[in-house]
């Protein structure tokens, strides 16, 4: 059987599974077997995701192999027409158009399909452990799994869609699922509020995106990638319109990927269950915005528009730089472990935006080689970040879950019979890092996973995100040197500073959670015991450490330059080349670029030494006596203890300062938006309400009461008396005669 016939199953299977899980959940809710064997639908979800993963791998391997053999072509499969319609063109002919659904697989979608199917499967497995052992979720997990699987369908569909219309449809499905899952604990007002906030904020972006897509249809007459990416079509179109379209689409991406100024929803979205944060708000959905921007590449690369859209690309890089730095600064002062990760997500996504901005700028300027490099590095960072951040969220979920368990045991020493949940009774916050500490020995798998993930996010050399982050920072600085790229100095400086800030806040999180002595009795009683949770952590730790292999295979170049191929045979030499490139800035000509060399080492120094050093000095500490961590992290813990003893300093002046308070209040963005709403939207809404009540309702009510009155008057004529009817007949006849004679 041909793969293309089965590829459609990738989005369709999860869509079918969703109503199935809901229905079975409704039928068997509370049933012991449904809870045990079927995990309240979790088994179905994971089984479907496993099938999807196998299918995806089949597709991906086929695609990669075909390209490596040199016979590769982008896989395009037209599944069928959804709507077909005819319309008249300006010169009077009939034209048939259709909104077909098809699948497209090129290098970018291959990578994202792998990220999505792999992480969806792993996070599905994680959910089996995380969701089904928490009594709060009992008897409603089927709702979680149904929404979860629908989300997966949205992600697969968006990645595979061959037109912007379907991309947008699946994009909205994801938005819906994000809303539903953030509000999973809808009985909590904060969760309901967060869900609403996330939905409305992304909606702002989506409206712009939709307008952009309408412009696209007006310009190209189609949403199909094949039509809109055609260089001659782009050349024939009005460059001003395309620019407006690109800007509007970028606003949509900003909303979805939580970038400044539409970032406010992401931290609140952490109200959802942790698997949701891991999947939607770290690994997949927030990448949709990046995917959209990456898909804009052909609009910038068309020769006819060379140099036209450099300001759009610069704007993308600027937004990226600002968000990266701002989010990292806010992450400095967050004590909630998931909030730190949320801001870190924003910051890392912003890195990718900056890289994509640089890539688009390069290609629009005509520097194709630099563009391909920046583009590849950005998407490689997307890959690394998704793997690492998905894992970090799952690790944080593991910590929170075990904290809950420990707290539960502590609170109910003997009387453990009542299963009721005691959240909120004594206000113990299981997500607050100031309640943790010393978990390195108690949760070895989680601690190692978190260390690997943090290292990847920080960009510690040779691990995960290092390979891609260097490329992004380097590309941004390269852009500064090019003609007309002077303004790139702003995002370039911002991402460079952010590299150091990332080193600080990620290390701070790790040391506050895992190093030192337990800060509360709850933290002292934690054990790693929940089933299923370690599986994805181990798998993703491996994936993060394997980034060096991907780098060696030339993954970034493969994505950046569509014709390139991955080759296992040249792995050692490629790896050597990558290492020389990353550390010594040796270009393809074999010479080292001193400028890039300097930038590289400043980045490494800031992120690997300065940031972690301050984090250790402030939050490090050795474990309690008798506790022993795994060898791979024990040196880190004891090093932090030594540094803290030697270099600890009093930072209360900073932590009490106005800046710190402002950061704790998230730079007052929520307040500003609330005020803006009060000043602008509320009066407008009141005026609209008045208009609706008085004018529109008034008109309708007027028609209604007017016809009532009129009918009352007319009813007077029906007396029931035969004489009146005769009279009317006579008058009518008379009138007819008069009419016929032409008198009236």
């Amino acid at each position: 059987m041909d793969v293309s016939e089965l590829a459609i199953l990738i989005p369709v299977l999860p869509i079918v599974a969703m109503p199935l899980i809901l229905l079975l959940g409704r039928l068997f809710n509370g049933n012991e077997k449904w809870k045990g064997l079927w995990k309240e639908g979790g088994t179905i979800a994971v089984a479907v995701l496993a099938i999807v993963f196998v299918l995806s791998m089949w597709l991906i391997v086929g695609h990669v192999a075909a390209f490596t053999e040199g016979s590769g072509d982008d896989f395009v499969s037209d599944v069928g027409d959804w709507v077909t319609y005819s319309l008249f063109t300006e010169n009077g002919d009939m034209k048939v158009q259709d909104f077909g659904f098809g699948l497209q697989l090129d290098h970018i979608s291959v990578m994202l399909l792998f990220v999505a199917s792999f992480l969806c499967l792993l996070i599905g497995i994680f959910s089996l452990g995380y969701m089904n052992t928490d009594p709060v979720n009992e008897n409603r997990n089927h709702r979680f799994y149904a929404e979860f699987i629908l989300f997966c369908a949205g992600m697969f569909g968006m990645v595979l869609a061959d037109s912007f219309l379907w991309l947008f449809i699946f994009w909205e499905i994801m938005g819906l699922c994000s809303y539903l899952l953030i509000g999973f604990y809808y009985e909590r007002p904060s969760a309901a509020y967060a869900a609403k906030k996330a939905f409305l904020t992304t909606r702002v972006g989506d409206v712009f995106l939709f307008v952009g897509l309408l412009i696209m249809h007006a310009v190209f007459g189609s949403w199909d990638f094949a039509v809109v990416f055609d260089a001659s079509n782009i050349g024939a179109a009005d460059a001003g319109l395309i620019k407006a379209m690109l800007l509007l689409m970028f606003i949509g991406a900003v909303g979805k990927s939580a970038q400044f100024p539409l970032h406010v929803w992401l931290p609140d979205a952490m109200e959802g269950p942790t698997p949701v944060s891991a999947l939607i708000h770290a690994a997949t959905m927030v990448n949709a915005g990046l995917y959209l921007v990456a898909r804009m590449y052909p609009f910038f690369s068309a020769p006819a528009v060379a140099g036209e859209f450099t300001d759009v690309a610069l704007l993308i890089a600027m937004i990226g730089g600002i968000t990266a730095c701002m989010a990292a600064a806010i992450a400095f002062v967050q004590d909630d472990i998931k909030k730190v990760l949320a801001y870190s997500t924003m910051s890392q996504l912003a890195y990718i935006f900056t890289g994509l901005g640089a890539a688009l700028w390069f290609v629009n300027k005509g520097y194709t080689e630099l563009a391909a490099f920046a583009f590849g590095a950005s998407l490689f960072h997307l890959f690394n970040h998704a793997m690492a951040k998905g894992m970090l969220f799952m690790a944080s979920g593991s910590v929170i879950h075990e904290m809950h368990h420990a707290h539960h045991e502590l609170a109910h020493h003997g009387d453990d019979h009542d299963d009721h949940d005691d959240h909120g009774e004594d206000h113990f916050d299981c997500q607050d890092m100031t309640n943790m500490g010393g978990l390195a020995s108690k949760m070895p798998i989680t601690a190692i996973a978190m260390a690997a993930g943090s290292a990847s996010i920080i960009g510690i050399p040779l691990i995960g995100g290092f390979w891609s982050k260097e490329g992004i920072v380097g590309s941004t600085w390269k852009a500064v040197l090019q003609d007309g790229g002077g303004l790139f100095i702003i995002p370039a400086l911002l991402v460079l500073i952010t590299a150091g800030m990332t080193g600080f806040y990620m290390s701070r999180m790790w040391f506050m959670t895992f190093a030192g002595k337990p800060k509360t009795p709850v933290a002292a009683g934690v054990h790693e015991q929940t089933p299923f949770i370690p599986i994805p952590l181990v798998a993703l730790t491996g994936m993060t450490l394997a980034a060096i292999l991907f780098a060696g295979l030339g993954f970034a170049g493969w994505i950046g330059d569509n014709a390139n191929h991955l080759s296992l045979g040249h792995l050692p030499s490629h790896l050597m080349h990558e290492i020389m490139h990353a550390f010594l800035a040796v270009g393809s000509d074999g010479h080292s670029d001193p400028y890039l060399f300097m930038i590289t080492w400043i980045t490494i120094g800031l992120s690997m030494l300065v940031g972690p050093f301050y984090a250790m000095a402030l939050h490090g500490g050795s474990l309690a006596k008798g506790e022993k961590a795994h060898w791979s992290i024990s040196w880190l813990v004891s090093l932090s203890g030594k540094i803290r003893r030697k270099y600890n300093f009093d930072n209360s002046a900073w932590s009490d300062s106005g800046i710190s308070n402002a950061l704790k209040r998230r730079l007052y963005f929520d307040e500003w938006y609330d005020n803006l709403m009060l000043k602008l939207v509320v009066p407008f809404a009141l005026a609209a309400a008045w208009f609706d009540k008085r004018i529109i309702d008034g008109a309708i009510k007027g028609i209604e009461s007017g016809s009532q009155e009129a009918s009352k008057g007319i009813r007077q004529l029906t007396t029931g008396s035969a004489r009146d009817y005769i009279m009317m007949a006579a008058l009518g006849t008379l009138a007819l005669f008069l009419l016929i004679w032409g008198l009236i």
Partner: protein
Amino acid sequence: MIDPSWVAGLAVILFCIGLWGAFTRKNAIIVLMCIEIILNAVNLNFVAGAAQHGDATGWIYVVFAVAIAAAEVAIGLAIFLAMYSQHETVSLDEVKLLKH
């Protein structure tokens, strides 16, 4: 011979009398009689027309109209009988069945 226009004039007068009676009188039987007057006014008009044009069609129509009018009167009186047996009156002011 009387000029047909006089006959037609008489027909108009009769018609008006009949119409006026049908509008104003309360008693259903009188109203029925007034309707008969209207019919006869029409018949007269036919006759006048026939005499004027020397065409027998008008007279033939009159014969038919008289026959139908007889049937109509029979039906009308039957309705009034039924009405009387139900409402014990034939006053049109009191019986307003057509409303329903």
